[in-house]
């Protein structure tokens, strides 16, 4: 409930209109890095608020590119992207950081700071918004406890296992109670049991109202969670399978 209220307050602060709008909407989006080679071609998609969506497809299908477009790390070559009511490609340098603070990203390579402790790595997401130190400490401890990492909070990432590092990355993405959570191959390097454990943590965010987009090529996981699945191949959407029974 607190999380939903916090999100509502942030939406109001950012001047976002129409909270009934989808979290993400892509109109005829294409992205090419070199002439004639398209990472994405004419993609039209909509992710509702609180929806859990899998992006699947082989390597090089465009899953990572699609995510990078959503958190404004790149601009599309063509088309428009509305993220939380903002036209992401048209945002100026000053407007991008506030949008990113509302999006949690779990990277395939974790992107943790090796010389900082687990606690400091997670705190980074709160420090950039200027949260007071006491609040940072409390929130970081809470999220680490939720992910079972509180006993590792003073350790440095290189001393952690792959699964633990992945959980730190998830903790950093969740600590700011994001409106959207993007996870790029979050289970790529993990064994099956650990992969399910990580996926349960990510799925938990969706139950709290966060829009969750998970890029994976692990079909077993997609089948197990029974959520909407968008399949990309060669930069195109080749299948958009809704969740069985219309579940979010």
């Amino acid at each position, binding site marked *: 409930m607190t999380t939903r209220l916090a999100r509502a307050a942030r939406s109001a602060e950012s001047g976002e209109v129409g909270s009934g709008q989808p979290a993400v909407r892509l109109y005829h989006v294409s992205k090419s890095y070199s002439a004639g080679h398209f990472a994405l071609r004419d993609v039209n998609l909509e992710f509702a608020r609180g929806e859990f969506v899998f992006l699947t497809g082989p390597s090089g299908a465009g899953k990572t590119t699609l995510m990078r477009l959503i*958190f404004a*790390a790149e601009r599309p070559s063509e088309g428009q992207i509305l993220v939380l009511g903002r036209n992401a490609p048209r945002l100026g*340098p*000053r407007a991008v*950081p*506030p*949008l*990113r*603070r*509302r*999006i949690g*990203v779990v*990277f395939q390579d974790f*992107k*943790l*700071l090796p*010389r900082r402790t687990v606690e400091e790595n997670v705190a*980074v*997401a709160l*420090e*950039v*918004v*200027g*949260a*007071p*130190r006491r609040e*940072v400490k409390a929130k970081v401890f809470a999220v680490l406890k939720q992910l079972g990492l509180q006993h590792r909070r003073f350790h440095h990432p290189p001393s952690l296992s792959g699964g633990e590092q992945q959980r730190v990355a998830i903790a*950093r993405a969740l600590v*700011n109670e994001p409106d959207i959570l993007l996870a790029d191959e979050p289970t790529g390097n993990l064994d099956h049991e650990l992969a399910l454990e990580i996926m349960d943590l990510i799925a938990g965010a969706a139950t709290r109202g966060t829009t969750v987009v998970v890029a994976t090529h692990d079909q077993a996981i997609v089948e197990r969670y029974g959520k909407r699945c968008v399949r990309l191949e060669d930069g195109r959407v080749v299948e958009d399978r809704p969740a069985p029974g219309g579940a979010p």
Partner: protein
Amino acid sequence: MTRLLARAATWVRSALRGFAASPLTSSVAVVTIAVTLILVGAFALLVANMESVLVRFGDALRVTAFLDDSLDADAQRALASQATRVEGVESVILVSREEALARFRRGVGRGAALLEGLSENPLPASLELSLSPSLRSAAGLAQVAERVAKLPGVSDVASGRDWVEGYLRGVALVRGVGTGLGLILALASLLIIANTIRLAVLSRRDELEILSLVGASRSFVAAPFLIEGWIQGALGGAFALAALYAIFRLVLPGLEFGLEMVLGGVAPRFFEWRECLSLVAAGSALGLFGAAVAVASEARS
């Protein structure tokens, strides 16, 4: 306000972390700034002391008007009274011929025996004119001397104008050399600071990317580097101040003769606390500016 303070605390922690991560390059930057400020500070100290000589001797800067021998005592007093009304004159002392001779005897000591053979007093009466504070300079001396020379009954005028002009030229030379050297060294320090911060930016590129991905603004990313440059500059300034003080206390006493020539017996003084703060502030500004150059150039690339 709380958020701003929280951000500032994060920046300072991050800057100190950066400082600790590359102690060698940071130390080189600090030492460079310190060396620059020691040299500039030494020249500034010399100029300040030389200028204080003029200020301290200001009330001793006088114009002497020699009077015609034909003037009797009443005429001399009348002329002295007239001289007090000359613009730029603060006070007038009438020195009679007898008084002049008595001073001369006291001044030459044992050599006074030479005067025994004189049949009459060869020294003229004179007026010693001290100047208003605003005119205690070479130009002021010249102006007052010119005005006094026009008074009827004044046969000749003498002033320390040549000495003051020469001394001021010396002060200007020292100041010019100090400024020139300071500018060259400041430029060198600036480049070294800029490169140090640039190296810090490059070595933390991954960290900066992550900060940007979690929503850090450009100013949030840049601020720790600016603080790092500022700290390096302030430390350099503080070290320079300490070194200058040590030189002042330990080395200057051994240079007594040279000092006597330059300062004419005036006890040398160290910087006042405002000047000390200015030196540290100059170092801070140098560090901050160098860091700003590095951050701006990295942001462009």
